[in-house]
């Protein structure tokens, strides 16, 4: 993340120790001291709210979760913590439901992230042509982004209804078999992945589009002169040029996929917390919630949270190694 979004250094302001112009102007000493204090302290005052907010509501709870994960804590008596060591973790990793949730998180994650980003890439490429009504098209593909998880899921629950839903009606029109989008494992996961894909494809397409517009035009002109087809221009120029942006969206969607909660919860209706009647689409986020709130076992839920954290760190490490290996390759 930090490597793709690193701040450019060329526009750095004057070094901090340069005496302020006011001092040279012969102002009273207290004013110049105040001025220097202002120069030194103001930046920290300006950035303090963010770091304060992050420390209190982000970092501190995260660390506390780690402590809770080593204890047995009841939601109703949160002040009573009984030391369990790594008991919560060993128990968790011996539970089928945990592995099921992990598997579901991965499959739904792949089913939603991969098609989403590929379609976004194609959409962005097409939106980059000279178009009539391009503004309108952009707003149209962004409309799902304005729709909340809750609203979108409730709508898709109707569309995927096995008995009267529009999806099955269309499929039967095509002569395809009746599909139970609620109860069967793969169909239900595909349906949930569809909700995620619907909400985010346009958003990612616009991010790609902006990156594409920053690619120098003469690259394309040179390629066209060399007789490169549009497809070759897309794969050899466009995609490599916007790779940092692609990496950025991959990171963001991966993090989103590991946290998936609202879509499966509401897709399951009355049995949402367990992720369907047979846990067929229970994600890690849902499992954590089920353990922490309905089951009231905060310690075990915290162990799920920290397992998710470890998972993210693992993904991050893999990504880092992958990106480094690619950076070492000569660029074409």
């Amino acid at each position, binding site marked *: 993340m930090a490597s793709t979004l690193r701040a450019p250094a060329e526009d750095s302001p004057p070094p901090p120790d340069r005496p302020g112009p006011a001092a040279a102007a012969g102002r009273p000493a207290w004013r110049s001291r105040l001025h220097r204090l202002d120069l030194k302290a*103001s930046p920290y005052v300006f950035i303090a709210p963010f770091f304060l907010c992050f420390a209190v509501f982000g970092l501190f709870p995260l660390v*506390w979760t780690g402590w809770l994960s080593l204890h047995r804590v009841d939601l109703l008596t949160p002040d009573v913590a009984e030391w369990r060591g790594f008991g919560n973790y060993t128990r968790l990793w011996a539970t089928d439901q945990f592995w099921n949730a992990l598997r579901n998180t991965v499959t739904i994650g792949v089913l939603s992230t991969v098609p989403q980003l590929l379609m976004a890439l194609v959409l962005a490429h097409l939106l980059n042509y000279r*178009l009539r009504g391009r503004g309108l098209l952009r707003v*149209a593909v*962004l409309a799902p982004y*304005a729709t909340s998880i809750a609203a979108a899921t409730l709508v898709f629950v109707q569309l995927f209804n096995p008995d009267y839903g529009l999806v099955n*009606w269309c499929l039967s029109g095509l002569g395809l078999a009746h599909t139970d989008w609620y109860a069967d494992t793969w169909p239900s996961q595909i349906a949930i992945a569809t909700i995620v894909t619907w909400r985010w494809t346009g958003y990612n397409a616009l991010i790609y589009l902006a990156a594409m517009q920053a690619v120098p035009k003469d690259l394309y002109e040179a390629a066209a002169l060399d007789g490169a087809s549009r497809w070759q221009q897309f794969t050899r120029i466009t995609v490599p040029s916007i790779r940092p942006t692609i990496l950025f969206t991959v990171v963001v969607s991966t993090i989103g996929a590991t946290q998936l909660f609202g879509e499966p919860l509401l897709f399951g209706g009355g049995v949402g917390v367990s992720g369907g009647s047979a846990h067929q689409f229970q994600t890690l986020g849902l499992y954590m919630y089920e353990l922490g709130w309905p089951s009231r076992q905060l310690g075990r839920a915290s162990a799920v949270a920290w397992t998710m954290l470890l998972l993210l760190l693992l993904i991050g490490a893999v990504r880092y190694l992958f990106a480094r290996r690619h950076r070492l390759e000569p660029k074409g």
Partner: protein
Amino acid sequence: MAATTAPGALRRRLRPGAGAQDKAGPVTYLVLGLAAVVSLFPLYWTFVAATSTGDRVAQSPPPLVPGGELWNNVRTVWDQADMGTALLNSTVVAGCVALSTVLFATLAGFAFAKLAFRGRGALLSLVVATMTIPPQLGVIPLYRIVTGLGWGNHLQAVVLPSLVAAFGVFFMRQFLAEAVPTELIEAARVDGAHSLRIVWHVVLPIARPAMAVLGMLVFVQSWNDFFWPFVVLTQQNPTVQVALAGIGGGSAYEINQAVIMTGALVGTLPLLLVFAVLGRHIVGGITAGAVKS
């Protein structure tokens, strides 16, 4: 997308400037039109269902044109799911979060973009790095803190953890680094202006468009936020999303499918209106924030 033939390649060779700025062909329009339809159809269908009776929604084939039940459905969802309170709560929460994020992000973004201080680069990297830690993972202690303070089911429990976001700081930093001329700040310093004065008289006038875009983006995000409000609020004092979860959860209400869809429509309509009016600016903001990496 378009198939390439040898004559096609030849023609392009004679016409430099091809590539990214090519005129769109019929296939492009077809695919983009399809994408627009797929994007908009679920929203249109929400409207169709919200104007129907519950029985009509559950017909096979499903209805594709609006009916005349909208008013009845809106009344039902208003009475049973407390949509009025939910809309008001969501407006208050998203408004507060947007205002405070814009304020703090502008100050921090300005400091990172234009002020010199020890550890600036490292701290900015830290800001970006925090974006990779999902807040969902700290939700259990956060719940305890908030209920311990007696804020359970109160709006401040939703607002306070979101007062400022890393995304906003980074967004404003990227904008201000380019938009504010460093000479202008130095000139103000020569005139003896202190930092807050510079913010007020130099930075804010320049930053206003970016602040507006950031405000809209944060408002949308906050309005649509699900997990934490769902955990900490109840159906007695819900945001729109929590109320929708209550309707969709099923067991709590005797509500038919058409009323559920009406809830989804009522909860989404304010944002869709904002998008219809300001869509282009929002599009510009999303793309501006993400690319300058």
